[in-house]
């Protein structure tokens, strides 16, 4: 990535402040990157005793992790689960948020109350609630992948809702929606052609949050998805069996790092792919883009 040239500040900042800003940025970068570096080093660590860096390095953990069918299995389960959760959440939240904002504002308090529930109740309580209810209504779904995905959709929905709703507010969807309607667009065309393209930053943020929520969720996966092996479930089991099977932590580090890299690359791709879009949608960003071109 090249250094972005931004519009010159109207008044040159004093040197001390510039140094201060850089120092702050450096500290923040270390704070965020150091744990990842540690995880990465751990995946290659052979013997690691009292030194800052490992005594020896090895590729064994990577080979073992990738060659471990249980680990690979739980990893792919988690990926499918988290992707499905993110997609379901977007499909559910975008029309709902649009409707509550543009067509019937009386729905907003109801949705917002619903969005508060996953924050008020521990996931384990919600999980047992889902277990009880599904036992009465749809006993056939119990213990299935689908029910767990629906459960994750429910707990991740507030993140998606707030991200999407904020993006809708920033884009002024009420106004755009009326304009599109006056142009003869149907509600589906409005959402598809006008609303969605103008809230992409919110969609990206929301789906990454939903993905991450589902990927790292433990309690519900344990209770609702009985028998399903997700990465957190596998990790918990690995923790328990650490003494008997040394190296599982290193394998866990491998999976953690792969997951992180995947999410990072994913968001980088989306951000890069949307960069013009994002620039168009950010107030004042045009000036910056102008400078970049010139």
């Amino acid at each position: 990535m090249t250094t972005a040239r931004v519009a010159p500040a109207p008044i040159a900042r004093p040197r001390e402040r510039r140094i201060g800003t850089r120092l702050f940025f450096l500290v923040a970068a270390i704070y965020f990157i150091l744990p990842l570096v540690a995880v990465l080093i751990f995946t290659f660590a052979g013997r690691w005793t009292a030194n800052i860096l490992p005594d020896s390095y090895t590729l064994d953990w990577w080979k073992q992790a990738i060659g471990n069918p249980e680990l690979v299995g739980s990893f792919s389960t988690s990926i499918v689960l988290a992707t499905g959760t993110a997609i379901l959440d977007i499909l559910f939240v975008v029309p709902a948020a649009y409707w509550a904002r543009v067509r019937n504002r009386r729905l907003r308090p109801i949705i917002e109350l619903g969005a508060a529930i996953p924050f008020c109740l521990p996931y384990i309580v919600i999980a047992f609630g889902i277990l009880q209810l599904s036992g009465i209504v749809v006993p056939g779904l119990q213990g299935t992948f689908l029910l767990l995905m629906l459960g994750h959709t429910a707990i991740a929905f507030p993140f998606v809702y707030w991200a999407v709703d904020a993006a809708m507010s920033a884009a002024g969807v009420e106004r755009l929606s009326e304009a599109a309607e006056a142009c003869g667009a149907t509600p589906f065309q409005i959402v598809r052609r006008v609303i969605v393209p103008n809230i992409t930053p919110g969609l990206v943020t929301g789906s990454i949050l939903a993905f991450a929520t589902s990927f790292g969720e433990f309690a519900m996966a344990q209770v609702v998805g009985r028998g399903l092996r997700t990465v957190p479930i596998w990790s918990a089991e690995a923790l328990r069996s650490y003494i008997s099977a040394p190296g599982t932590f290193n394998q866990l580090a491998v999976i953690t790092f792969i997951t992180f890299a995947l999410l990072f690359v994913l968001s980088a791709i989306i951000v890069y792919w949307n960069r013009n879009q994002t620039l168009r949608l950010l107030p004042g960003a045009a000036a910056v883009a102008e400078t970049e071109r010139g």
Partner: protein
Amino acid sequence: MSSGVSLQDVRKSFGSVHALDGVSLEIESGELIALLGPSGCGKTTLLRSVAGLEQPDGGRILIGDRDVTGVPTRERPIGMVFQSYALFPNMTVRQNIAFPLTVRKRPTAEIKARSDEMLELVNLVPQAARYPNQISGGQAQRAALGRALAPAPDVLLLDEPLSALDALVRTRLRDEIRRVQQLVKTTAIYVTHDQSEAMAIADRVAVMNHGRVEQIAAPPELYETPATQFSATFVGSRNALELPVRDGRVSLGEAFSVPAPAGSSRAVVFFRPEDVEVGLNGVGLPATVEFKIFLGATSRLHLVTDSDGQEARFYADLPSRRAVALVPGARVSVRVEPTDVRAFPAGG
């Protein structure tokens, strides 16, 4: 190609507020009518009702011969321009203009030809590939006008289209909108709170107040003979004085004397500052110049008189060349032709 609009006893309330209190209006085909009034008078609600963005509680709205009262917005033969432009940020100027045709699934060749025509019409050919955040406010509103006209609507609806623009662009774009409207001969409803804008652009002006149409008239008629006190206050800048009625007449000393409106003891009189004749020859009512404001070609004198022991203040506009000697404190005499004075019952 365009058709007239007929509004019949249109009513709309928001809670206890009567936004539209039985509005009836006949708009002829190809006519540009301005809805003029202060904020909250119902003019925007009326426009949005024609668009279908508000559903009236009662009454009928006809476009041509078709009753559109319950018809959804997207099926009405309208084009709309909003105060905030409301261009789609994810589309270029060309795509914005083509949007009404795209959603109606017109053939590609037709969309191309029609958007070229519209870009030409609103003078945006060089900006066709730009995005809304890369063009000026005036250009954005022209793009919005092109978008509204692209499907060749029967009625063009404009909701304060110039309010977000600065003064210079405003007059230019006002004339531009008028030119385009006359070129495509579409019926147009233009909402504004600016009386000079309304008079400059419209064939007829409907003055609205408290959800009703107070007067509908061509701009010169509205300017010269306001039918109600509200019209008189709202249109043009006028002197307003409340005076007592004596022997069926209302007068301001020797300045003027006109018949009073029937059955009232006090009357409000309106007269224009440019109709006040200021002289130094002693004919008329003596007055003192309080202060003078230079406006360029004309100067505005703020005058104070003592008529029947009652102080009255009003102002007079006269060519700046003639006002040179009239410094604050100067004594002058004023007269107003009785035909230039309009009297209404006080308290109405």
